[in-house]
């Protein structure tokens, strides 16, 4: 909604095992940007955006903020 460039797709991992295997999904949430770059875990908003931009190949040359409290869930 905040960017006309972004399409968000939420995939039910169990229902599409071939897709999950293809992207090596071992835990959720598992996020894949442009079917290329990936990161695992529910990241805080600034980290999620940074990871998305990085995955999309956008040059992020600003100093990365100190976000040490990055929870990763794997189940």
């Amino acid at each position, binding site marked *: 909604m*905040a*960017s006309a460039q972004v399409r968000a*797709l939420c*995939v039910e991992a169990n*229902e599409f095992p071939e897709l999950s295997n293809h*992207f090596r999904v071992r835990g959720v*949430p598992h996020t*894949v940007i442009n079917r290329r770059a990936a990161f695992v875990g529910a990241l805080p908003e*600034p980290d999620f955006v940074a990871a998305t931009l990085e995955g999309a190949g*956008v040059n992020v040359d600003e100093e990365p903020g100190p976000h040490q409290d990055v929870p990763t869930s794997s189940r």
Partner: protein
Amino acid sequence: MALIPDETRQQLKERFQTRLSGPVRLTLYTKPGSSRLVLPSGLGCPTCDDARQIAELIRDSAPDKVTLEIVDISQDGARAEIDEVFEVPTMAIAADTNPGRIRFQGLPTGSEFPALIDAVERVSSGDHGLKPETVTALAKLTEPTEVMVFATPT
């Protein structure tokens, strides 16, 4: 089987009354269902019928705001191609006539159901709820970008 209890229907109706403001266009991409019959991969759609029930629940909870279009991609392959929907069931949410850019692939039950309801409400109100810094950062995206999140109902 009634997938959705009456209590949930009532709750959603009341919730949507206060939270939906603008129109929401739901598109459900399906294939003819095969109910609980397990078919080889790519044939039929065991969860499409349940997905239709969820989509209809959302429409029926606010029929003055929400419209629902059901696209059978086995009949309308061209449309699937244009909208770039290759798997079913897929539910797309939009405020306008463009193909929805918020999509749920597979049955959005369990913890994915609140996410679906949240997406409907945000599209309706136009409030993405993101921080100003996030919006600024997202403006750097100049190419179409797909954010695909794998989730499970539990």
